[in-house]
């Protein structure tokens, strides 16, 4: 097992750590790679828990405070686990004037979660984000990697059904 300083015991975790180390290797000792490494680390682990931050800090040669500062500064990094499907409802201006509120309300009604929360079965997490660049199709949202535009509240249940 890799010596990682945390309490990982399962082989699954050990594998995760090995993969993380490979990501870190690309920028080992180079503080400038911090954001790039965190992007990839989050893709791998799903979020940026403390053990990831510690490992990244040591690998790139920056302090843990700095890593924590960066993780909490940027909206894309998360300290808590997300659902399997991440719903990002656009709350940019164009979408706002065309009904972001209605879309969020419909999702809330359907899933019972507010922006910032994850469903109990970890299927969905919901958040509002700034403009996703699909303003021409406002109101819009992203689920996983798919952009859905010209949303009507009635379509929400059907769209969510596609994601299990």
């Amino acid at each position, binding site marked *: 097992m890799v010596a990682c300083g945390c309490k990982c015991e399962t082989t699954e975790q050990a594998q995760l750590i090995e993969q993380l180390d490979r990501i870190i290797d690309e920028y080992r000792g180079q503080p400038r790679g911090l954001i790039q490494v965190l992007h990839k680390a989050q893709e791998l682990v799903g979020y940026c828990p403390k053990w990831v931050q510690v490992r990244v800090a040591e690998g790139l040669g920056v302090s843990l405070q700095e890593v924590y500062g960066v993780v909490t500064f940027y909206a*894309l990094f998360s300290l808590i686990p997300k659902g399997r499907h991440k719903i990002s409802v656009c709350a940019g*201006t164009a979408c706002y004037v065309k009904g972001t509120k209605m879309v969020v309300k419909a999702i809330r009604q359907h899933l019972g979660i507010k922006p910032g929360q994850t469903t109990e079965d970890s299927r969905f997490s919901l958040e509002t984000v700034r403009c996703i660049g699909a303003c021409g199709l406002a109101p819009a949202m992203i689920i996983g990697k798919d952009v859905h535009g010209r949303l009507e509240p009635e379509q929400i249940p059907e769209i969510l059904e596609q994601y299990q």
Partner: protein
Amino acid sequence: MNNLNEIRAKYTEQFQQKSKRARIVVGLGTCGIAAGGDKVMEAIKQEVAARNLDIDIDFTSCIGMCYREPIVEVALPGMASVIYGDIFPDKVSQLIESHVVNKQPVTEWAAMQIPEGRTEYDGIVTMDKSAYYEKQVRTVTSRLGRTNPESIEDYIATGGYEAIEKALSMDRLAVIDEVKKSGLRGRGGAGFSTGMKWTFVYNAQGDKKYAVCNADEGDPGAFMDRSVLEGDPHGVIEGMMIGGYAIGADEGYIYCRAEYPLAIRRLNLAIAKAEKLGLLGENILGSGFNFRIRIKAGAGAFVCGEETALLNSIEGQRGMPRVRPPFPANKGLWQKPTTLNNVETYANVPFILRKGADWYAGMGTEKSKGSKVFCLTGKINNTGLAEVPMGITLREVIFNIAGGIQDGKQFKAVQSGGPSGGCLPAEKLDLPIDYESLGAVGAIMGSGGLVVMDENTCMVDVARFFLNFTQNESCGKCIPCREGTKRMLEILTRICDGEGKVEDMDTLERLANVIKTASLCGLGQTCPNPILTTLRYFRHEYEAHIIDKRCPAGVCNALLVYKIIAENCTGCGACRRVCPVGAISGENKQPHTLDTAACIKCGGCVSKCKFDAIIRG
């Protein structure tokens, strides 16, 4: 390879061959894909295979008519290209049957045709006469929707990399002079002369310099940079190369927001292909000029669009602005002289070099030259991308190009410049669009997002929306911005909740002016603009909220009162059944009544009523 003559001849020949064959092209920009473009592409491939047709299938980026996505182009040899809108998979079979097999375009689905010297069809408007494009010019957007953005061959065949060849044969100062003479000003917001900026970096002392491209496009309601990156990535790369050569840089960075995965992918692809042809790397075209470009993805912070915050972010730190001076021209990325320009700014440069500064300066107004790409969004009929000459009026853009207000509603305001910009009322519609005119009325050109609002939009709510945005995005480094935005947001929320006080309007104005003058970076310096302009042009709406406790647009929930208009009510009972708190009562076929004290203002009754008998206001 010392010049591109040979491969240019080859690619141009290929490009011309393409138009000699029948082809179907699907628009696959982010907007096209969001509207279902990839499913249409699938359907077309299946249909073509099933019918065993001899026809080329290709894809392109967004031509600009987002309101007609998914968009499909069909071109037969010698005949004009027909651009079809709203083509969903279920229309594909009929489209191919009619246009490809029977050679009869489906006129009622066609948005326009593009002849480009080929035979025109009857009954379809040509692009240059269509309502959407008649007043537009296409420079930066000329390849959008017309070439395959992932093909360097298409780019070179349409004049690509001619400008860098020309630049490399010129003296570096002559290149800067040409850009200066064109009058090009930064398209990222502030509108600083690009030629001047490059002169500063040229003159700065240092062995290492950088050219950085700002592709953070943070303004909500703006997507022109995304469209240009997705549709003409080589154009931006070539612009950066010219900038890099002119200032003496050998390295460039593109800072692109992570929310644009397709743009990042196409940029990466474009860079790899340019490197393969030797257009990026060492000793480019035998000139001795070396240049490499790297991409950095952002991580979701609006303030990173600010130039010094962006540089910190590239360096791997939190995106907090630096105190200026020193300016990036002297101490930028890793403290080296750096020029930072917007995507659209760079994309203009190859055209200026190729067609000449005089050609470029021939468009626009005295102080704002050339053309500008705008994103038309909000409550208008035609949402999309439009490139217009500077100096065109807001009215022409909103009522001619964007086709006026949706559902025949009244125009109320247009928001220009995002969270740093302002909301302008109908009286300002005849204003020419240029940096000075917009600045004089409290708005800004900004990056080019125009969000149009109708009578159903509450301007106080809009001001609160923007403040909520800037307060969230304030990085917290300087106090006027960090604390000030919070206080202003509190006041606006109070007003929307019906608890506003008369003196709140003065307090807002005072706070706004302090924040404007005392903040460290552009975020704080401009974030009061939405409040100041709404106070200036829509004061009556603030007064209605504060004094009459009323929201005229019917948006602010706390101020709404639901009423049943007896004359319109048929007594169908739909509202009574849907009301979750039993606030509506009445006999069948008799006008109902609504108990305002019990009403929780959920709006359920309004959406159920088929007779417009329930109003809120």
